[in-house]
């Protein structure tokens, strides 16, 4: 657990940089994190995925895996990797201010 200042506000992040409390998140924070991550400017494509991740989390209590994203977000897995080269589910979850998606065990 650590505190960070994003878009001028203090937030709590876990060791892997995921939000501890999704209600602390704002869109400006996603913009700042994306710039720091090397993703650069967030396009409509990025936002479509980030918003989808947040919606799924708020409805179901867990963020979708890459496979689920590819099936239900309307963005193909190939495109998802073009948008988030370091792993779409993980990166988009971080930018969306929700916990890391749990792969089943």
């Amino acid at each position, binding site marked *: 657990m650590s505190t960070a200042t994003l878009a001028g506000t203090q937030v709590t992040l876990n060791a892997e940089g995921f939000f501890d409390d999704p209600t602390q998140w704002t869109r400006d924070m996603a913009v700042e994190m994306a710039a720091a991550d090397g993703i650069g400017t967030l396009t409509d494509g990025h936002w479509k995925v980030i918003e989808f991740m947040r919606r799924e989390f708020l409805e179901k209590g867990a963020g979708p895996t*890459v496979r689920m994203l590819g099936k239900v977000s309307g963005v193909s897995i190939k495109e998802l990797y073009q948008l988030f*080269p370091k*792993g779409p589910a993980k990166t988009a979850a971080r930018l969306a201010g929700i916990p890391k998606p749990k792969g*089943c*065990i």
Partner: protein
Amino acid sequence: MTKRIVVLGGGTGGTLTANRLHRHYKVHRVDDQRVEIVVVDQDNHHVYQPALLFVPFGLTSRQEFVRPRTEQLHPDIEFVEDTINHVDTFRDTVVLDGGRELAYDVLVIATGATLAVDETEGLGGAGWNENVFTFYDLAGATALESALDSFEGGKLVVNVVDMPIKCPVAPLEFCFLADWYFTERGIRDKVEITYATPLDGAFTKPIASAALASLLEEKGIKLLTEFNTGTVVGTDTDGDGKRLIGYDGRELEFDLAVVVPLHNGAAYVGRSEGLGDELNFVPTDPHTLQSKVKENVFVIGDATDVLTSKAGSVTHFEGEVLVSNIERFLDHEPLDTSYDGHANCFIETGFGKALLIDFNYDTEPLPGHFPTAVGMPLLKESRFNHLGKLLFQWVYWHALLPGRDIPGVGADMPRHGKQRSNNEEAMV
């Protein structure tokens, strides 16, 4: 009038559920009515799936682990051999492809998971069962046996495409057994073994993941994490070699690839309105095993969407709560919410040894002993665990499937004997 419970699937979950229900309802009635139990499956071959791991290494044969489903079910249970077209949960009816309709009072979905080979580009195409194999079905495991037999050296890649999969430790066990197998053949130095996984470690949970990663390292098996296979090139058609291509552009060359394909729930679930999720698994309450779809539909084993391993031990532990809840449901009583996600797996590590892990929804696999402080060692290689794994096949046919309780092994995860992790003290 009779009440009817229809069980879809005659594998581990369906068989043990039907036998346990039969034992109860041969002496009990519901609302003064007799209860009949019907099991549906598309064929009459019950495969003891853990044995598939041993087939490629010539360590077992078909007659030892494939038996008729009907012989595992009590003779008073009706067995229907047909494929399922769909379930109509509005009419409480199962429609079979042969045209028969089975109305039910309670439905049990126990149709497991299926392999979605076609969902990965190139998998199942060029080089399939020549250079690219899976041991997750009998045909693949059998074909792989001859391929391993004639393998004289080169790059062996073991790859999990994505989670969830059945028995998440099986691909690791395959790596350990391959290390043993090539050592026995005297060509281990000519074989490079790589385990490529979409996870960020050897396994999902931190303590077991670290233990398994050091075991891979000890055995000289390379670990490649966060590898998400996008395409399989199974023959060297373009001059760039046989390889797995990750979505992130990374390429992994192989001479022989053993791939665990994507898994879905059964296809009929997708054809049944409102029954399954995007992957055809059935949304299920993790503690009662009642479906979230309709109150008279219950789900067991790999067919559920609950966040624990898709494994026979899970199915076994779920069985007790599931059967009790079907009885309670029919008796109009509140359901038992006690299923805790308990899973227990032997992990074969080669050279006559195995590890044992035991965990549930809240507690990750920890070191210690099972089921009590003087039991089998947890998260540690031992010959005792290997013997346990071998003996389990007997227990499976003679106690687990008939629905008998196994002495000392209950549905709830035992805490006694486990070493506590730092962040878990408050729970114990």
